[in-house]
C-alpha cells in the first residue's frame, strides 16, 4: 500500500515542505527538500521521529541558580517528557564547564545530557 506524508522540515530555518512516499511503511521517495538534511529528516520523521531536548538543570553554589542543558543527540520524540522528568530530578554542583556531561544516559535513550553554558562558582 502506498502512502504520502507532507512534512515541514525542521532541519534549518528554511522550513522546506517535503513529501515522503511510503510503501508498506518503507520510504520509497522524498521530494521537496533542498538539501541532504531534509532527506534525512524526512526519512527519520516518518519512521522514528527524534528531537533534541533543551532545558535547564538546578545548580548548587553557582553564579546562576540553573544551568542550561541539551541532549547531546536527538532522542525519540515520544520520550521527551521522560527525559524532562529525569533532567528535572537532578541537581548539579558548580562549577560546570560547557559541554560537561551531566547525565550519561538519559531515560534509557543512550544519549547524554550536557551543559550548554559554563557556570562559575558563586
Amino acid at each position: 500500500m502506498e502512502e504520502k506524508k507532507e512534512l515541514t522540515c525542521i532541519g534549518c530555518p528554511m522550513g522546506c515542505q517535503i513529501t515522503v512516499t511510503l510503501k508498506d511503511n518503507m520510504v520509497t521517495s522524498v521530494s521537496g527538500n533542498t538539501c541532504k538534511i531534509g532527506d534525512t529528516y524526512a526519512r527519520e520523521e516518518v519512521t522514528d521521529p527524534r528531537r533534541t531536548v533543551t532545558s535547564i538543570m538546578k545548580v548548587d553554589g553557582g553564579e546562576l541558580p540553573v544551568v542550561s542543558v541539551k541532549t547531546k543527540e536527538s532522542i525519540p520524540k515520544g520520550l521527551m517528557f521522560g527525559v524532562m522528568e529525569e533532567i528535572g530530578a537532578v541537581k548539579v554542583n558548580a562549577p560546570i564547564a560547557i559541554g560537561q556531561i551531566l547525565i550519561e544516559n538519559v531515560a534509557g535513550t543512550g544519549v547524554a545530557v550536557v551543559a550548554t553554558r559554563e557556570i562559575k562558582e558563586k
Partner: protein
Amino acid sequence: MIRKSLVIIGGGPAGMAAALGAVKGGLAPQEILILERDKRLGGILNQCIHNGFGLHTFKEELTGPEYAARYEAQIEEKQIPYKLETMVMSIREGEEKEIIAMNGREGILEIYAKAVILAMGCRERPRGALNIPGYRPAGIYSAGTAQYYVNMEGKLPGKEVVILGSGDIGLIMARRMTLEGAKVKAVAELMPYSGGLKRNIVQCLQDFDIPLLLSHTVVDIKGKERVEGVTIAQVDEKSVPIPGTEEFYPCDTLLLSCGLIPENELSLGCGVEISPVTGGPVVNECLETSKSGIFACGNVLHVHDLVDYVSGEALEAGERAAEYVLSEEDSGPGGQELTVCGENGVRYTVPSTINMNRMKETQTIRFRVGREFQGVKVSVYLEDTLLRSIPKKTMAPGEMEKVILLKKDLEGKEIQRIRITIEEA
C-alpha cells in the same frame, strides 16, 4: 576619562561580532571597548537555551548560550576590553563622540571615541502598544520575560497559558512551558500567517498539539489580581474582531509575542535618523547612520530572524568602523550615491543608500516582505532596467531575505536608484 578608537554599545551577538570585525579591519583590540549592561556578554542569547543557532556560521546546530560562548571565547582570546553591568546613559555625536556610562564599581564614566557602533538589540512590543482591553492583573508577560524566568531563574510564571502572537519567542515558549508541565491552550495570531519560522510551528506547536489560531486576537482579559482567562475572537481582513466569534479561554497567564522593536533611545538622543518602517537607524553601505562615525548593526538596526545574520552584519559594521577610524580623509567619500528602494511588498532595505566609491566588490542588501508570497521572484532593477531575478517558492514576513549586488554590475551606469521588487514568477 577614557579615550578609545571605537566604542561598541551592547555586548550581545551584534556587539561581539562587531568587535571581532573591527579587529579584522585592523584596529588594535585595546583600542576597542564594549559596554554591556548585563552581568555577562551574550545578550538575549543567554536565555535562548533552545537550539537552532549557528547553522550558517558554524555549520552545526547550537543553543543560544553555546553560540554566545563561541564569540565570547574569541573576545577573550583577542583580549578585547569590555565592561559589564555598565549602562550607557547618552551618546553625543561629533568629531569625537562622547559616551556617558555608569556602573556600580566605577561610578559615572566619560568615554571619548572616534567611532561608535550601536548594537543595543531590540525589545518586545508591550501590551500597551497592543491596546488589549480588560483588566491589568499579574500574569501578563512578554514571552521574553517568561523565558527569562524559566531559563535563567528556574521559576514558572504560569500553569495555564494562552499566547498572543506567533513570533518565534512565543512559539519557543509554548514548547518550553509545555515541557515544564504547563498547559498551553492556544496561540492566537492576528495575521493570517505566523510571524515565526515554519520549523518552530512544527516542533513547538504541532509536536504538542497546541492549536495555532490564525486571524485571531485577544479581545478581553479577565481577572483583577491574577489573570483568570482571556477572550479570543476571530478577526476580519482588516484585523477587526468579528462579533459572535468570541471564545473564552480560562488561563492564569497571557504571554505576548507580538513583535520586536529596535531599542533606539540612545540613537534618538544623539540625533540619528530613524526609519519609520524598521524602527532602526537609516544606514548607508557601511552600515553607518546619518551621523558620521556612528554605525549600527544587529537588531537595533532592523529585527533579524536568525542570529547568524546578525553576526554577519555586525562583522561588516565592525570592519567598516575600523576603516572609518583608520582612514586619513576628513571629507566625505564623494562619488556616485545610489538609493536602494524596496517596492511591491519589499517593506524596507538595509542599507538604503550605496556610495559607489566605498562599495566593496559585493554588497548584501537585506530586506523583509510585508505579506506572504508564493511562486514569485525577487527582481533587481537599475532604474527601469532589469538586472537580475531570483525565483522564490515562498516568501513570508517572518523571514529576512537578501540579494547580493556586484560592484561590476553597477559601475559606470548612469543611474540613481536600485529598485528591489517582488514579481509574479
